């Protein structure tokens, strides 16, 4: 009988090909996602070594980071972006890697399409050259972002070398209040434990609040794990997980499905398993959140004020003041009522169908404020198609919004979707770093519901004012 183990241990240990004494583990990777930005140098390295891709079918490619979100049927205007996308296509062709290119019905943000195609399955190890790979932990996977050298390792050997992270459990119980969503949980946790609180750890989210979340909500939460510094975050698979995966394109079918479910149902942390760090939070303490600074930990409940610089340790004040200066805010300011310019709904954090649904249902019968430029960007072609089918597109258009085409878009502003310098954007993405959404852009992270309330009123607004 083995000792009590966490879900993370079970997956990690069962994928360890070899442990180096006092060194990293050689970890076998079940699923590898690649995109155009962090893969070209890896392929170059592979070719320089005269290697081929060890397991082309375990890698899936799609362009997402730098592609335009308008006129995708045309050639990409930006020569450098076009070159990167062309290079991805060429590399996939040369190495027989499945690619869902621009205009393919399955194209989209890599962390949106993996789950929606059923490529992401419980118990897997999953990596991608993108820190938000933590998203896939929602399915009970050990999933994390890697650098390009490691992309090359996976392509060449299907393994990477990783020091085993410590384990952290974040337990949240109780029912969420009206207007509070998974995004608010994520921003709340980071505001409590800081952007480095999770560093060196892999998080397991547990508790009744987590169990009640939909798969989309779980993905949003796990997605933001990296913003607390954690290597990743996971949630034990359950009936919600299985129902989501059933009959997806690459999910096990028929007899294999039954077998897979039996296996997946065992993926749980043992009762007496221990974690190096544990946090307990209560759902009723969480209100709709918004950030005011230049890292995701600088957030507060939407009815709150920006904390006073005096309330911080002396060593932290310089960075804090620099951050508020960038944002054009003063400490002590009330957030509600501040005028904003842009609303961005999308990204691997909140670009799934449930997010568009929430946004659309909120704005139904209302009008976009005149001072707001809104970019609503679906996470994938499938999300886009479903939004149309469900009538969300019509609702958006009637309220003065337009749906763009899938991609990472203004989350990191590699394409033309850049927020102008000095402008305020309420954004459903994951990072409010300086310049993240364009040089000089000022980002306020929030949920799709908060974004919707802000888009209607033109200023920072508590969505609960509209919910009865």
């Amino acid at each position, binding site marked *: 009988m083995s000792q009590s183990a966490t879900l993370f241990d079970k997956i990690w240990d069962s994928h360890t090909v070899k442990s180096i004494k006092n060194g990293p583990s050689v970890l076998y990777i079940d699923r590898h996602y690649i995109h155009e930005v962090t893969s070209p140098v890896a392929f*170059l390295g592979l070719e320089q070594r005269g290697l081929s891709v060890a397991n082309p079918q375990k890698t899936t490619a799609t362009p997402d980071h730098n592609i335009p979100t308008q006129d995708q049927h045309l050639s990409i205007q930006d020569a450098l972006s076009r*070159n990167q996308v062309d290079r991805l296509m060429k590399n996939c062709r040369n190495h027989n890697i499945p690619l869902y290119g621009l205009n393919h019905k399955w194209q989209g943000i890599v962390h949106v399409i993996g789950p929606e195609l059923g490529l992401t399955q419980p118990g897997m190890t999953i990596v991608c050259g993108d820190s938000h790979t933590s998203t896939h932990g929602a399915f009970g996977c050990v999933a994390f972002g890697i650098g390009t050298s490691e992309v090359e*390792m996976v392509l060449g050997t*299907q393994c990477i070398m990783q020091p085993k992270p410590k384990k952290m459990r974040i337990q949240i119980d109780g029912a969420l209040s009206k207007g509070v969503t998974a995004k608010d949980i994520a921003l709340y946790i980071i505001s409590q434990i800081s952007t*480095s609180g999770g560093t060196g750890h892999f998080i397991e989210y547990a508790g009744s609040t987590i169990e009640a979340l939909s798969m989309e909500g779980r993905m949003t939460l796990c997605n933001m794990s990296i913003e607390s510094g954690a290597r990743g975050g996971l949630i034990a698979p359950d009936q919600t997980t299985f129902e989501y995966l059933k009959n997806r394109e690459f999910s096990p079918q028929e007899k294999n499905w039954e077998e897979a479910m039996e296996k997946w149902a065992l993926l749980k942390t043992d009762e007496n398993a221990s974690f190096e760090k544990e946090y307990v939070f209560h759902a009723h303490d969480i209100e709709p959140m918004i950030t005011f600074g230049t890292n995701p930990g600088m957030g507060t409940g939407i009815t709150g004020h920006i904390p006073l610089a005096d309330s911080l340790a002396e060593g932290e004040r310089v960075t804090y003041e620099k951050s508020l200066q960038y944002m054009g805010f003063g400490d002590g300011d009330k957030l509600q009522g501040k005028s904003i310019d842009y609303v961005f709904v999308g990204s691997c954090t909140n670009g799934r169908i449930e997010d568009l649904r929430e946004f659309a249902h909120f704005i139904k019968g209302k009008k976009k404020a005149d001072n707001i430029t809104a970019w609503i960007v679906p996470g994938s072609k499938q999300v886009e198609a479903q939004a149309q089918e469900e009538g969300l597109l019509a609702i958006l258009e009637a309220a003065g919004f337009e749906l763009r085409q899938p991609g990472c878009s203004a989350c990191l502003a590699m394409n033309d979707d850049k927020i102008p*310098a000095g402008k305020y954007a309420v954004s459903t993405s994951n990072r409010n770093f300086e310049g993240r959404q364009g040089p000089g852009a000022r980002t306020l992270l929030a949920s799709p519901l908060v974004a919707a309330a802000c888009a209607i009123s033109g200023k920072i607004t508590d969505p609960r004012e509209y919910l009865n």
Partner: protein
Amino acid sequence: MPIEKFIKIQSSAVPVQIENVDTDQIIPARFLKAVERKGFGDNLFRDWRYDKSNNPIIGFPLNETKYSGQILIGGKNFGSGSSREHAAWALYDYGFKVVVSSFFADIFKGNALNNGLLPVQVTSEELSEIFETIEGDTQATFTIDLEQQTFIIDASGKVIDFDINPYKKECLLNGYDDIDYLLSLKKEIEIFESK
């Protein structure tokens, strides 16, 4: 690509006394469009280094001639955010061989080590002492000896021991990279796959 060996260096340092330096600051996303690994140093800290008209911003340490050297000293929680290895490439390409901070983000640390850029973690008190040393003498030198795992403030002779994973230390001292090692495990990986 094999990495350059790292054994020992002595150099002055450039202080960037800001906390939570994320990889978007080290290299903004709009400069990630290359398909080869070169030239990223030109855009290192782009938006802190240059204004909208591409003029150097006075006061940013990389633009101050009084600061130079192969060591970058950063505030707490250095390298958070995006997994872009371009951040490590940009620092290395610019000429840094060592980054010192009181805390590093995980992915950045791994990426740095995979590129021969040594992350040296010190305590917050030691970090303050290093910043103060540079404030007192901008050309103050420091000696980093990987074999001994020591960071020495040359002026005072203070020796700061730092941790590094023994496997990674071996890789850096010898210029080995992980892929060579993984390729040597081909048989074991095949056996694992067939299970």
